């Protein structure tokens, strides 16, 4: 291509390719920025901008619960890219440089957020259908409480960066699962090597009681143990609904679920590679999608 009409465009920019390849309306560029700019890449991928009329779908998309619809702009009640309707268009069809719309990422972070959202839609690991019902209760619980800082769990979740799930072998059912609750470094007291664990006394085992205790506990060793107990109690919430459990393939899909607590500065790469983020990744705030 002699004229590179795309050199000023980036992933996440919104354009109006009116009449090109039969497209009309506004589209967000899905292609990675290098592929947009480089003339040797012959195609550009575009996803239509949509508004979500269904209240439930809209609410879910605004809360980043639906990877199909990453938010492009909060203007006009929320405008989203529909990643299920991506079109691939020959760059040569553009006879003039497309003008970026005012919509689109306002800074590098927003641009990166959009790229991550695209990657998530295509690259996220597909948890086996039989296992998913085991995870839904804890996903729903965290989603429902995260935005309620008045609840003990809501307050505790503010310090949780990510929740990941690991299986001993995803391809062989039943699986043994580990629910990794990863908190911000420094949130949990360091336990000395000679700490006396036998003197901590009874710990609560009910989720709300654990969270309430975390918020008021002053003894560092006991506080550290309460945090670990939180991971255990969240893992215990991973039980399929009665309706789902009627299906033997669901009921028998999981052998065991344990909870494990880590700080984000001590969660090893080997476990990152073996685990998958639960779809509740708004936890860490600045990293949506």
């Amino acid at each position, binding site marked *: 291509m002699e004229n590179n009409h795309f050199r000023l465009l980036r992933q996440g920019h919104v354009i109006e390719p009116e009449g090109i390849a039969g497209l009309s309306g506004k589209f967000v560029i899905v292609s990675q920025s290098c592929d947009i700019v480089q003339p040797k890449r012959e195609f550009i991928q575009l996803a239509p901008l949509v508004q979500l009329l269904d209240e439930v779908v809209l609410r879910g998309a605004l809360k980043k619960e639906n990877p199909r619809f990453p938010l492009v702009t909060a203007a006009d009640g929320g405008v989203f890219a529909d990643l299920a309707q991506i079109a691939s268009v020959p760059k040569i069809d553009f006879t003039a440089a497309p003008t970026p719309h005012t919509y689109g990422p306002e800074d590098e972070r927003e641009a990166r957020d959009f790229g991550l959202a695209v990657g998530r839609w295509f690259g996220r690991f597909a948890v086996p259908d039989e296992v998913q019902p085991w995870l839904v209760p804890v996903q729903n619980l965290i989603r429902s409480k995260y935005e309620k800082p008045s609840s003990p769990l809501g307050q505790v979740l503010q310090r949780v960066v990510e929740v990941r799930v690991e299986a001993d072998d995803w391809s062989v059912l039943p699986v043994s699962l580990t629910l990794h609750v990863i908190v911000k470094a420094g949130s949990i007291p360091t336990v000395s090597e000679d700490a006396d664990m036998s003197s*901590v006394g009874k710990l609560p085992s009910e989720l709300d009681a654990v969270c309430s205790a975390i918020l008021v506990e002053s003894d560092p060793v006991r506080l550290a143990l309460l945090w670990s107990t939180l991971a255990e109690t969240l893992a215990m919430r991973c039980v399929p609904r009665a309706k789902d459990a009627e299906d033997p393939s669901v009921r028998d899909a999981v052998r065991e679920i344990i909870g494990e607590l880590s700080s984000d500065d001590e969660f090893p790469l080997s476990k990152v590679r073996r685990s998958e983020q639960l779809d509740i990744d708004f936890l860490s705030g600045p990293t949506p999608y």
Partner: protein
Amino acid sequence: MNGVVELSPRAFTLSAIGLTALALLGTSVPVARASETVIVRPFFTPSDSSSSAGNGILAGGLPESESAAVSSSSSADLIAELRTSTSFTWEQTAKLFGVSRRTVHLWAAGGNMASQNEEHLAELLREVRSIRAAGTPDQRLQLLAMLDRERAARASTDDDINRPASTYAAGA
């Protein structure tokens, strides 16, 4: 539910023990996962860690005397023995199992161990006892080699679900 479960910290298998056993133990632990193949791990209370009720699962194949010695101790006691015998830190002990050190803290306080970790603990203790009994001058090196072996067993693999994508030639 008063928020505290009065149960042994031991893991057990529903299929092996059955719901009746839960009733006998007088627990209010939810048993919604009452599948024949599902393992339910009753929640722990650290102060109950010395209880032997619940009969946790231990490594198969241990010599009878050692199995008896291991099963007569709580997981917390065994973790304490492992740490003392090896002089490993929390972090090093955690790496023997591929868990976070926070998890080992919980075990040391009498918390639940997954059945496979409980089995592994028994195996490791048997090995550590053997190394110490031999009394060779390179004991420390043998213990560290054991640690490295366990770490290697949990290293990243080419089959990890989130391994890096294959890279392609620059001109592709």
